[in-house]
C-alpha cells in the first residue's frame, strides 16, 4: 500500500464518525524506485490531505524533512516535488495493518494490499 492510497482510505465501520485518517502499523516497509513525474505530483498535491500524508510518513519513519505545511509555489519546486514523490509513490507498506482511530478495528495489509472488508456486524 502506497501512501497515496492511504491518503484516500477511511474507516467505514458502522457508527464511526472520525475514521480518517487510518493509523498505520507496519511490520514491513519497502522503498521502490518509481519514475518521477513532476506534473503528476504537482497535480496530486491539492487533492491530498497534507497533514495525513505527513503523519503517515512519520509513522513509517520515512518523513525525512517533509514540511508540516505545504510550501508556496510548490509547482516549480522540483526538490520539494521529489520529496513528495518519494513519500507518495515510492514508500510502500508490504505487511502490517491499518487501524481505525475511533474504534480500534484493524484492517490487515498483506503483500502490499489492504483488506478493508468488514464483517456482517460492522456494516
Amino acid at each position: 500500500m502506497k501512501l497515496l492510497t492511504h491518503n484516500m482510505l477511511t474507516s467505514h465501520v458502522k457508527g464511526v464518525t472520525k475514521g480518517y485518517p487510518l493509523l498505520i502499523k507496519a511490520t514491513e516497509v519497502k522503498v521502490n524506485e518509481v519514475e518521477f513525474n513532476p506534473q503528476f505530483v504537482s497535480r496530486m498535491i491539492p487533492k491530498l490531505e497534507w497533514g495525513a500524508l505527513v503523519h503517515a510518513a512519520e509513522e513509517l519513519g520515512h518523513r525525512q524533512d517533509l514540511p508540516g505545511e505545504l510550501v508556496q509555489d510548490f509547482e516549480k519546486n522540483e526538490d520539494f516535488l521529489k520529496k513528495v514523490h518519494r513519500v507518495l509513490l515510492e514508500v510502500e507498506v508490504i505487511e502490517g495493518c491499518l487501524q481505525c482511530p475511533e474504534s480500534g478495528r484493524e484492517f490487515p495489509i498483506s503483500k502490499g494490499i489492504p483488506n478493508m472488508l468488514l464483517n456482517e456486524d460492522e456494516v
Partner: protein
Amino acid sequence: HQEHHSSTCALEENNVKAVRRSKEEKKLLRKQIKASHTLLKHEGIHTAPQPTRSLVVANGGLGNSVSREELSAALKEMGEMESLLMPPHKPYAFVTYRCEESALKAYTHLNGQKLQCGESSVMLYLAYVSSVTHEEEASVPLPEGLVLLEDFVSPEEEALLLAAVDWSSTNDDVTAQKALKHRRVKHYGFEFRYDNNNVDKDKPLPAGIPAECLPVLERCLRNGHINVMPDQLTVNQYESGQGIPPHVDTHSPFEDTILSLSLGAKTVMEFRHPDGRVVAVVLPGRSLLVMKGESRYVWTHGITPRKFDMVPACEQQSPDHVTPEPGTRSNLTLSKRGTRTSFTFRKIRLEPCRCAFTSACDSQGASSTPSPSTPPPPALPCCHADAARLEEEYVHRVYDAIASHFSSTRHSPWPRVCHFLSSLPPGSVLADVGCGNGKYLGVNPEMIVGCDRSSALVQICAERGFHAFVSDALNVPLRTASCDACISIAVIHHFSTEERRLAAVRELVRLLKPGGHALIYVWAFEQEYNKQRSKYLKDHNKEHHGKENLTKNTSEDRREPHGKSAMQNSGHLEEGYEPVDKKQDVGKVTDGKLSVHTNRTAFNTQDLLVPWHLKEGKKQGEEDHLTPVFHRYYHVFHQGELEQLCSQVDGVKVQSSYHDQGNWCVILEKD
C-alpha cells in the same frame, strides 16, 4: 553388443521403442524436457539434480489416460519397484525403485520415449525427485442403509438373466420398453413413468417379473435383505459413456428396500447427501446393491456418463469398494467402462409413505420432482443475509478460484469506457469500484484507485503496479465526495436483490463530488440490439465445440465430442431425463429458482448462473474432460432497468444511457 540387443528387445516388448536420434531431434528433446520441468515446477514438484531412487514420470499420469497396468509394465523392466503413485487427474506419476541403479536405468531408457497406451501413445519425460509424499487415504463410510454384496449371482445366472430381456421386442404394451434417448430401459410388473416420476398402480403391465429372476429374489428373501417379494422390475442398460442423473427413487410408489443387481461391466455410482457429502461406490458385475433407509430415501444416486472410471487398483482394495476422496493419493487406476445392465427390483407401495425423511418425501408434502442437479440451484434471496450467502457462493468464491484465468481473458479495455476515463480533466481523482484485474487502472494516468471484492484479483492489480485494495462495493472505504469520477464496469449485475443493486449505486454516488460523474455498465438481457448481435453471441460458433451444456432444456441433442468422453459434472441434466417442471424453460421465473445459462446464447431469464470453464494454462479449444466448471450469479438487466434503478437515488441524474456490446450503460451526474 549382446547386452544392448537384449535390452532393446525388453523395451520393445513393453511397447517402448528406442529410437536413434539426429542432432536436431536431440535438441528438440532437450527443449521438451526443459518445458516439462517448468510445468512440473508449477505443480509444486521440484526435480533433483542428482540421481535418486524416485522419479517423476511426466505424461504418465491418470490425467493423460495412462493406466497403472500400462505404465507399471514399462517401469517394472528397469528394476524392482517399491511404489507407483498415480495422483488422480494429474498428468504425471511417481515411481520409487528399491535402488538407485534401477532409477538410473529407467531414466536412461524411458526419458523422451513413447509409451503405447491402448490405441494412442504418450511421450514420457522422466526426472529425479528427492521425495514422494504419500497422503493419508481417507476412508469413507457407505451411506446409512446401503449394503453391497459381491458375487451375488454366478456367471451362469448372469447369462440367464441377461438373456431373459428381449430388447428387440416390438410389443411395447407388454413390457413398456422405451428408448430414453440413449440409456435403454424396460419395465416389468408396473411401468415407472418418467414424466411424473411415479407409477400407475391401477394399470399393471401384462408382463410381470420374469421367472428367471425368482431364484435371485428368493435368495434375497432367505438372507433377510427383503421381507416381501418385489413386484416391479426396471431393467436399465448403460453403454460406455451413458449414465443417469442423480435422483432419489420417489417415496410414494415404492416401499423402503430397493435392490439393484449389476450385470455385465462394473461402474461407479455416486451417492450424494443434501449436506454435500459425496460417496462414490464401485459396483462390480454380478453384485447386488441393497438400498434402505437414508440411502434410499435421502441420498441421491446417479451414474456420471463416462467412458473411464477411476477405481482402486486391485492390489489395494478400499474397504466397502469405496473410491477414496478425490485428491488423496492412493493406488488408483483407470477402468474402461463396458455395457452394464442393472435389474432394479422394487415393491409397489399401497399406503402413503410415512418415512422420517419428510423433506424428501412426496407423500408428506415435498415436491415429487427429483432434483435435477446437485447441489440444487438456489432460489432468489429474499433478504440481505441470503443474498450475501448466495453472492459469496456464486460470485466471490468463484472469482477467487478463477482469478488468473479470468484475468487472462480480460485484457482489452472497452473503447467507450476508455473514452469516459480519458475525457476527465487532469488532476481528477478516480475510483474503479469492482476493478477486477485492473483492466482500467492504467488507462488514465491520473490518480485512480481500484477496489475489488476478490483478493486474488486485487493481487493481480498490485502485481501490475496499480493502487488497489480489497473491499465490498456496498461499503467502499473512501470518504464521501472524495472522487471526481467513478466507474463500475460489470459489477452491479452480481448483486442478487434489487435493494442491493440500488445500494451499490448509492455508494457510487456517495463517493462523487458535486458535479462528478459515474459510469456504470451491466450485462444486458437483450444481447441483440439494433439487429446487431453482441460479441458475446457472435463468438458462439467459434467456441461451440467441446463446451459442456448445462441448460435445463433437454430438447437439444447433446452429442458428446467424438471419441472422448466429457467427464461431466454429476448433476447434469442427462439424456433420458425429462424435467417435469417446465416453468423454468423460457420467460419469467415463476418460482424464483435460478436457471443455468448456456454460454454464448441468448438469455431467457434475468437471474441466472453462468458457467465458467476453468482452463489452467491450456490452449484455448483444447479438449479437456477434466475441466472444472464454476457458476457465477448474474442479474441481467432489461432495457431501461438501469435508468429506473438510478432514478431512485437522490441527488443524481442520468446524463446519458446507451447500449454497448451487450451491456446497458449509464453516465450519472451528481448535483
